[in-house]
């Protein structure tokens, strides 16, 4: 009954109610987007790091993986030491370097190249062709193939750098393109290659001998990961062992601007929504002062009046919120498209991830806001002096 009365009261002024619904729907959409943005990045990043089940990353001390040019020395010994630790099931060292694809003397294509071991790697998945098999094999992504015009089976010349004084390339070597891979952690717009780790280390000369940019470590179970991380940290003072939580926190710190923006905008849209609904229902209550006084005069309880007015706020906010979830999903796609242009962002990374929990949080917050918005007008309606209000209405 209170819901029906609330709806009747709202439909008394359809234009006003529709405008309020539109405003609340857009606010609800913004709130949902901001909740999705705030929680989505964290959840998505965790899943992103766990693509191949490696819970831990080992990077040069004080850095995040591939955050600087710093590398870990004596990588072979480090990998051996980590492999022997209790709870470790797989260890995958990775070296990153810029490699030049020599097309002609004046034409080269720079590709980011990963040196790794295919049997333990967690960086790519094969799309076409064969995996790395020997020291002359190289894997490429589609962007590199498009930039160089090469296809699977082609023989290519790769070099690690230049010597401007001698006007020649250094670390030059011949490879055969064996297959096409998708590299999980590298932007699809970046030409990328993959080769065996010792081969890339060898091309780099003394600078990259036995070095790795990153070592990925798989623990027996997620529960053991923290204990394994502590053990790894004790292996060498030159490394940082980073857990899933540590990496997520570091990235959240970097992307904190978006999270805080989401918090500020979400709060503002909620506050403005509460103000609007409060104003709308207060004016509605003032307009129906006579009716409310009559209801009270014929014996309708105060609680019933309060409940009806509060329900008016909840119905208005609820209807706006349900419409807003649809709008929010559409605007989230739009915003995702904008943010996907971030340079260097892997194709699998998402900023907005819809989770039913997010929609539930947004709906609960809006329902609470609707109730809050109805409290003041409900109190006003319940505390009207019956006789004075009836007399004033009769005179008017």
């Amino acid at each position: 009954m209170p819901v029906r009365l609330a709806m009747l009261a709202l439909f008394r002024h359809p234009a006003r109610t529709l405008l309020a619904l539109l405003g609340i729907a857009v606010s609800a959409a913004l709130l949902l987007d901001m909740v999705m943005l705030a929680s989505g990045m964290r959840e998505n990043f965790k899943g992103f790091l766990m693509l191949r089940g490696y819970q831990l990353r080992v990077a040069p001390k004080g850095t995040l993986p591939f955050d600087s040019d710093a590398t870990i020395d004596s990588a072979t010994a480090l990998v051996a030491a980590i492999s022997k630790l209790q709870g470790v099931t797989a260890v995958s060292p990775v070296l990153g370097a810029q490699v030049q694809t020599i097309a002609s003397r004046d034409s080269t294509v720079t590709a980011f190249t990963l040196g790794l071991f295919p049997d333990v790697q967690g960086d790519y998945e094969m799309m076409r062709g064969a995996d790395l098999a020997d020291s002359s094999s190289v894997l490429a992504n589609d962007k590199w193939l498009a930039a160089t015009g090469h296809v699977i089976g082609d023989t290519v010349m790769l070099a690690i750098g230049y010597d401007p004084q001698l006007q020649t390339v250094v670390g030059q070597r011949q490879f055969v393109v064996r297959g096409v891979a998708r590299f999980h952690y590298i932007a699809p717009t970046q030409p990328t290659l993959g080769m065996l780790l010792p081969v890339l280390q060898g091309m780099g000369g003394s600078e990259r001998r036995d070095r790795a940019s990153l070592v990925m470590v798989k623990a027996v179970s997620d529960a053991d990961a923290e204990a394994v991380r502590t053990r790894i940290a004790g292996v060498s003072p030159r490394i940082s062992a980073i857990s899933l939580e540590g990496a997520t926190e570091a990235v959240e710190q970097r992307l904190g601007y978006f999270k805080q923006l989401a918090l500020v905008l979400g709060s503002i849209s909620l506050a403005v929504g509460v103000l609007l609904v409060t104003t709308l229902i207060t004016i509605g209550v003032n307009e129906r002062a006579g009716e409310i006084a009559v209801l009270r005069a014929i014996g309708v309880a105060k609680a019933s009046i309060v409940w009806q007015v509060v329900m008016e706020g909840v119905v208005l906010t609820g209807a706006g919120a349900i419409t807003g979830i649809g709008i929010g999903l559409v605007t989230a796609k739009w915003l995702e498209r904008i943010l996907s242009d971030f340079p260097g962002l892997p194709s699998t990374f998402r900023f907005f991830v819809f989770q039913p929990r997010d929609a539930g949080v947004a709906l609960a917050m809006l329902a609470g806001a609707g109730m809050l918005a109805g409290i003041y007008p409900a109190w006003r309606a319940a505390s009207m002096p019956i006789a004075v209000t009836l007399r004033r209405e009769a005179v008017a």
Partner: protein
Amino acid sequence: MSVRWCIGLLAALYITAPVRAQVIDSAPSRSPLVRTIALDARLAADHGVQLGDTVRVSAAPGDSLGERAVVSALLARRADPSEIARQEYRARLHLDHLQRLINYGDRVDRFAVQSAGDAERATLLDAINSSAFGFRAWPSAEIAVRTSRTFQVVRRFNSAIGVITIVASAAFLLCILLLKIDERRRDVAALRMMGISPATIVNSVVIEAGIIALLGSLAGVVFGLIVARLVNWHFQGVYRTTLAFTLVTPQTVLFACVLSVLLGTVAGWVAARRLVGQPALTLLGR
């Protein structure tokens, strides 16, 4: 490299590498062999390093082969948006010092070249690029464009959020003004009964709505200025930078005021037309 047509040329060499610093002595070093180093002011504040202190710098953590250096300057963090999210400390060493420290040989990562004038720039670029092997010269403006993609994305994201906020605000503004004018139905009925023309009533309501919208937007500007200060204070503290995160510009103020007055006037006109379109007795509830 021949650059004979360049009247004045100033080159600066840059090299970047991760370097570790460790305080070993607070007394100023008098040895002429100890090189000077400029350290990040945040590092100095966080670890109690002062000007004149002697620190040990090395290419790797725990490296006992590092060198001693005297802190001769503290670097304030630049108000550069590309740096704010990065938490690592910065240090500046003399080029040869850093090259030796990290065993980098006679190499640099980049040169900065200052040309004599804008007219010389294109010729100079061609000259450098035609003689270069393994490197390429770029105009600073182009580098700025290439490296500013992140901020273009942020700007587009903020603009999109702005559009959504404007739609919500517009709906709220229209709704509030409709309510405000709807409340005046009895006044309007009385005016109609006194013989005031509908056009006069519509005009007066529209003017009233416009004034309310203008006053509201001016209050909004004051509120916006306060919020902008709070946002800047908060984020400058979080990122330890002097970068301004929000700016209330005259254009922003003008846009907000014009938009709200326009919306307010339209809402006032729609509401007034609805009111004068009804018989006076209906407006009175008879």
